[in-house]
Structures are given as C-alpha cells and as structure tokens.
C-alpha cells in the first residue's frame, strides 16, 4: 500500500517538475525576446503641435487652418454631452448655452449668465478653433481643452456643479453603456472631458477664402480685402494676431501704448489677467491674445465685452496697442478682410451679428 502510493506520487512529481521547467523556460524566453516597454496609448497631438513638424520660415505671419485628427466615436459622445444640460447643477445649462454653435460659438453677450442667472466674470470666447489656442481662458490657466472643462463645470457662476454630481446623474442614463463601448473604463470624469475635448477639436473652420488665399490662390480675395490684409500687417496687428489661428498663441498686455484700465475704470480682479496665475508684476494686465478667425461673428469684444462693434474694437486696439489712430476707411478695409476668414456657408454664421 505504502509503496504503491509512493510510486504514484513520485511519478506525478517527476512530470510536474518537467512541466514547470518547460513552462518557465518558455516564459523566460518570451520575456527576454519581447520588446521593452509597452507603447502607451497617447492621445494624438492636438492644436498647434499637430502642425507639420518643420521650422521652415514663412514670410506670412498667418497660416491656413487644417482639420485635426479625431476619433469619431469620441466626437459623437462629446457632441451629445456638449448640449446636455445635465452637466449643470440644476439641469438648465449646457456648454452650448454659452457657446452657441449657430452664433459663431459664443452667445453675443458681454458677460454670460450661469446657473441661477449669475453673471460670469469674462466675455465668452468662441469654441470654434479653440483647439488651436495654446492656452484656454483669458488668463491662460488651462493648458489643454480637457483642463478647461473643469473651469465652467465647477465655477459657481457658471454650471455650479461637481464631477461626482455629474457622474451620479449620468450613470443612470445610457451614457454609462455608450461610454463603456468607447472607453475601457467606462463613464469617468476624465473620459467625459476626453469626449468633450475631442468634439471641440472637430470644430475647426477650415476652407475659408483667406486660407485659400494663403495657400496661393491670389484671385480669391478682392482688392479691398487684400488692402485690408496689407493694413493688418503694416499697422502691426500681426505682431500679436499671427499664426494659424491669427492669435491665440501668446500673452500680451492690454494697454501697451496707453492706460486702458486707467481710462476705463472699475478695475476688478479679472482685469489682472495672467497675473492671477503667475503672481508676477510683469504679467499684470496681460491676457491671452484672442484668435481673430471668427471675430466678425463674436461681438462684443475684449475680456470685458466693452467693445460692441468690431469698428470700436479696432479703434481701441489701434490706440492702446499701436499708439495711433486708424482712419474709418482703414478700419472698414480691415473689417472686410477679417470677414474673409469665416468659411463660406459656415453653419455658425447663420445668425451672425454684423
């Protein structure tokens, strides 16, 4: 009895040892042969980084826009969320409440109203082409589109809610399933932001006449439009409003040649601009230079929404940034030129304010 059991045991052990050895050898071999480091699932580069990687000099201060590579499934989720009022505390406000796509991506107000009718701090910038801005918000406190979303969501005068509250609401809906299909870890705050940002990246206004002109089609602009562009350049507007987004890639003081805030009065914290982020004196009154791509659609202008018309805005800019006055004719030419940056039959121009 004992001998027999011992022999069976021994047999099993022998094969166990051999099998373990074989398995270990295979595993070992595979591990050594395998390439080091897993490729991480990085998001595709967005905004300016997506531009062709060349330091080639260009004579032109402005560059044409190109569509950004996006994941369609994520864009669809973002599109749904963008107009979903459940992202606000009382279900009255969605992103599209202030960033109205049909109104050039803004709402035509100097300052927007959030949950409970509370007044916002700064003028709503357009959501179009925001992927091409090197920072988000007037004071540039958000480095990316994803980071920007935290702002309005958690701001008491905007959507006045929190991510846990939003997740609790959305978990009950079919978003839970839809997110699980697209994102591995399903419905999370990070993934909601990812989807919204992906949608925003899809909102790029390519194919305008100005871009065609930049690409070499000289005949696409008329004489006045060309004159307007020349004035735009010669008067130094392009010092700040340059690049693919015609702005949006640097900070600048509002009031270089004159005391804008002193003249306007009622200075508040929001007027300190970049200083609120870096706490450096030289950054006081510095703001992110906005893009002028859809400027003909997004009155009123400046962070305080103080210029009701583009004509007024150009006048203010000339005085405080360039230190001289532009004639009405010049201003008109510039306005006409600026209009060429809006793509023809642009959906956001349906109810444009001129």
């Amino acid at each position: 009895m004992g001998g027999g059991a011992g022999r069976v045991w021994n047999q099993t052990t022998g094969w166990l040892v051999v099998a373990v050895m074989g398995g270990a050898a295979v595993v070992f071999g595979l591990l050594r042969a395998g390439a080091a480091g897993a490729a991480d699932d990085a998001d595709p580069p967005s905004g300016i980084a997506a531009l062709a990687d060349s330091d080639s000099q260009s004579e032109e201060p402005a560059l044409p826009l190109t569509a950004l590579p996006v994941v369609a499934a994520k864009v669809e989720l973002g599109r749904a969320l963008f107009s979903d009022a459940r992202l606000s505390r009382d279900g009255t406000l969605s992103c599209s409440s202030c960033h109205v796509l049909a109104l050039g991506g803004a709402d035509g107000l100097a300052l927007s109203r959030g949950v409970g009718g509370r007044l916002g701090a700064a003028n709503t910038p357009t959501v179009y082409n925001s992927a091409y801005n090197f920072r988000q918000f007037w004071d540039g406190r958000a480095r990316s589109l994803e980071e920007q979303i935290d702002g309005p969501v958690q701001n008491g005068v905007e959507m006045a809610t929190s991510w846990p509250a939003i997740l609790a609401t959305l978990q009950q809906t079919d978003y839970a399933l839809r997110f699980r299909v697209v994102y591995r870890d399903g419905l999370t705050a990070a993934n909601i932001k990812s989807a919204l940002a992906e949608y925003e990246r899809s909102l790029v206004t390519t194919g305008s006449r100005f871009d065609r002109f930049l690409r070499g089609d000289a005949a696409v602009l008329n004489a006045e439009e060309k004159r307007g562009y020349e004035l735009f350049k010669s008067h130094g507007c392009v010092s700040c409003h340059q690049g693919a987004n015609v702005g949006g890639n640097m900070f600048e003081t509002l009031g270089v040649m004159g005391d804008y805030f002193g003249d306007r009065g009622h200075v508040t914290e929001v007027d300190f601009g970049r200083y609120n982020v870096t706490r450096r004196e030289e950054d006081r009154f510095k703001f992110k230079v906005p893009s002028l791509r859809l400027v003909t659609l997004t009155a009123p202008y400046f962070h305080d929404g103080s210029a009701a018309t583009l004509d007024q805005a150009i006048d203010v800019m000339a005085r405080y940034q360039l230190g001289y006055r532009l004639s009405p004719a010049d201003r008109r030419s510039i306005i006409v030129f600026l209009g060429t940056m809006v793509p023809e039959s642009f959906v956001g121009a349906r109810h444009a304010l001129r």
Partner: protein
Amino acid sequence: MLYGERSRRSAGFFLLLGAGGLVGLVTLLALSRRHDGNTLQVAVGEVRRLRALDARLDRAAVLSRYGLQPSYDVMVRLVAQSHETLGGLTDSVGAASLDRTVTDELGELAALLAQKESAVEGFKSSNAVLRNTVAYIPLAADQVVQAAPVPLVERRVDELVRAALVYDLDGSSQHRLAVEQASVRLTPLAPSLPPPAQAALVSLTAHVRILLYTREKVDDILAQLIPKHADSVYDRLDQTLQDEREQLLRRGARTRLLLVGVSSLLLAAAFVAFTQLRRFNASLESRVRERTDALSQANAGLTEKMEELNAARKSLAEASRSAGMAEVASTVLHNVGNVLNSVNVSTTLIVSQTRASKVARLRMLVQLVAANRDDLSAFFTSDSRGKVLPEYLDKLAGVLELEQTQTLKELTAVQKHVDHISAVIAAQQTHAKSGGVVETLVLGSLLDEVARCHDTIHERHGIELVREYADLPKLALDRHRVFQIVMNLLTNAVQATQEAAERRIVLRTRSEGDRRLVIEVADSGCGIPAENLRRIFNHGFTTKRTGHGFGLHGSACAAAEMGGRLTVASDGAGQGACFRLELPMTGERPVAATSRNQSNG
C-alpha cells in the same frame, strides 16, 4: 515498506527542488527586468531630444527677434514638445528607480526648462511690442515730416530714426545714448510745430521710449531663454544616466548568468527526475508481474477447492435424494402396508369362511339320497330324515347363498385394496412428490370406502363409527392422496381406541367459507400428550411399539402437496384426539352440514 519510503522521500526532494527553482527563476526574472538597460537608454534619448528641442527653440527665438519669423506657432509647438518629453523623461527615470544624483540633476533640468518656458512667454510679449515699435517708428517719423516739412525737423527726425534702428540691431549702450540724445534734440522743436505735427511727434517719442524699454527687456529675456549654464546641466545629466546604464547592464549580465545557471540546474534536476521515473517504472512492472503470478497460483488452488466443493455438493444432493427416495419409499410401504393389512384381514376372513363352508352338508345329503336310491319315494314320504329333506335343502341353499354373498363382499374389498395399492405405487412412480391425479368425486363415498376397510376391525373391537358428512357437491381432489391420508388417520384412530373405555370414531366433512374443505377424524382414544403434539408429524417419530413413524409425516407431506395442511388437537393423554385435514376446495357452494349416524355395531 522500505522501497515506498525511499520513493516518497525522493518525491519530496524533487518537489522542493522544483519549487525552489521556480521561486529562484521568478526572482531572477523580476531582477533582470529591473536591471534592464533599455529604460535608461530611452531616458538618455529623451535628454538628448530635450537638448535638440532647446536648441531649436533658441533658434526660433532669434529668428523672431530679428523679424525673420513672424509667427510664434513654431515656438509654441517646441515648448509643448519639450513639456511632453520632460514628462516622459521623468517617467523613465522614475521607472528605473535610480539613486539621488539622477533625481537631483533631473530636478535641475526641470527647473531650467520651467524657466525657459516662462521666458518664452515674456519674450513673445516683449518682442511683439518691440517689433511693432521698430516697424512703426519710420511711419511715425513720416507723419511728423509730412505735417511739418521743415528741413531741421526732417534732419532731427531722420537722425532719431536712424539711431533707433541701429540701436535695435546693435543694442549697445553707445547707440542707446545716441537715440536718447537725438530724442532730446527734437523736444525743443515741438512747441513751434503745427498741432498735427505735434501729435505725430508725441506718438514718435512715445514709440522711441517703448523701443528703449523693450529693447533692453528683450535682451534680458533672451539671456534667460538661452542660459549659459544650460549646456552643463544637459551634459551632466547625460553622463549620469550613461553611467547608471552601464552599471545596470553589468548587473543585468550577472543576473542573466544566474538565470542561465538556475535554469540549467533545474533542467538537470528534471532530467534526473525523468531517469529516476523510468527506473521506478521498470521496478514497478517487475513487481506487478510477481504479484500476477502469485495471484494465478492462488486462483488455481481456488479452482481445485471449488471442484471439490461441487463434488461434495453433488454427493450431498444424491444422499438427500436417496433419503428422500427412502422416505418416499417408506411412505409408500407404509400406505401400502395399511392397505395390505386390510387385504390380509379380508383374505383371512375368506379363508376361514370358505373353510367353514356348509357345502360339506350338501355332500352328506347327496350320500343320503344315493343310499336311498332304490326307494326314493318311500324315503321322501316315510323316512324321518327324508321328510325334512326338502326343507333342509332349502335352508342349506339359503346358508350357502349367504356364504357366497359374504365371500363376494370380501373379495370385492380385496379387489379394491389391490387397486389402491397399484395406484399408490403408480402414483409414487410417475409423479414422485409432485402432481397427482385429480378426480371429481363425492367425498362421502371415498371416506366410506376407507371406513369399509376397517369394518371387520370395527366389528371385532366394537368401535362405533359415526359419520358426519356435510352436503358437499362433487369435488376435484387427488383421490389417492386423500385416501391415503384418511386411511392413515383412521388406522391410527382404530389403534388408539382399541383398548379405550369409550370406543368411538367420528368421521366429519365440512366446508369453511367457500374455499376450504375440512375432513376430521376424531377419536375417543388414548389421546396425545402435549409435548408430543409438536413432534407428531416429524419423520420417524412414533409412540407405537411396532411403529415406523412414517405415517403422519407422510400424510402431512401429502396434505401439503395438495395445497392443504394436516393438524392435530388433543386435550392430553386419555382425552382422545382430533386430526384435521384442510384442503383447498374447488366445486359448487356447499349446503349446510348434515350428519348421518350409522353404527356398525
């Protein structure tokens, strides 16, 4: 068993070795992954990439500085890439978990890059203003000259513009002074100028001021942007990472060597285990063979014993058959003996009767007649003997007729007995213990037949025979078995009452329910003591001096064979006994019992 003990220990040893080897393998694998130089190679690459990006950023800044690159998009992209690469580098270094020097130097580089980033922002702002101002100064100058086309004004304005542009390019303090001086020389001219010229001059002076301010600022910022110590930071980090990598590779090589060693050891162990296994297998087989042989031998012995057992069983069966046969034979003999008794009695009677026959008187009469042949008529009329002769002859005829009747009666009985005997023997021969001939008969008649066998005995001993027969229809019974049983019972009853005070035997038949037939033979004889009641049907049990003990046993067996049973009841010695034969009944429903009292007395 010593062999089992050894194999168990050997199994334990191999298991331990295998487990230990596996643990060692896993540890070494984990170590080798840590001692992987690849992560650090990636880190070194990232440092070099940062350096390259840095250089390109510097170049872009300079181009923008001199108005050769109007768009800041390139700089923005380079900063973003730098930021990303720094993140990757931090991750790689973190993953490799190196010592403090690397982390410190990395911190230094991160600080450097952060400083660069903020410098870039400052540069863009200041540079924009500077470029704009420098572009505008000639235009502003034109406006002044247009508004006041005075040669002095022209000359002074021209001086200022030239100084400004030169200062912008050169940035030397000498040329800065020239600009300041040129600006100062213009100032006193202001009041004499017409208002538009004055306004234009104000604008021009403002721009010159801006130029002076921002030109310095931009230089400072550029110095921050392209720090002199940047190179050394990169160099040092690069070197440190390289050194770390070297170390790691050396350690990795050692680990791999160990790994190979442990693997080969385990492989050798596996090989040894395998050979041991084969040896064990071979020994196992031989032992199995031994055992199988032993088993077959045992099996053979067993088969022998089995055969012996079978033979014994056969002889036992035969013996029992013989015993059975003997029993059967004895039963036959007993039953036949009973009947033969009656035959004997009858034949004795016939012989004595015939011997005592009055036929001799007839001869005497014939002699008398012959003697008186000559004068027969005188004999018959005058002789005293002759006169009574016809009457005497008549009486003699009567007696002889009576004798004939009696003899015939006895002979008929004998005939019947002989038939019975043949039947019994035939029955035993053909049907053995089972089966029997079933006839439809009147039970009462059968019982009467049995009674008749004992008639003489009944007479001689003065035994009263009472018949109580129920009114039964014709029944289907095994005639000879029933005859035997009742015969047996009656014989016993006769023997029991022979010497008794009261001599009476009752023969009863009745039905119980419509399924059962009961035949009772009750006597007033010597009875049966209680202790014998149980044993009375046993084979060989007898209380008679000349008994065999077969009768009641055989009767009981016969009853059972017919599907019935034989029982006895007695109140004890001297109290008589009642034997009861129960049989299953097949026939019509019987009517109530009647009794017929007949006495043979």
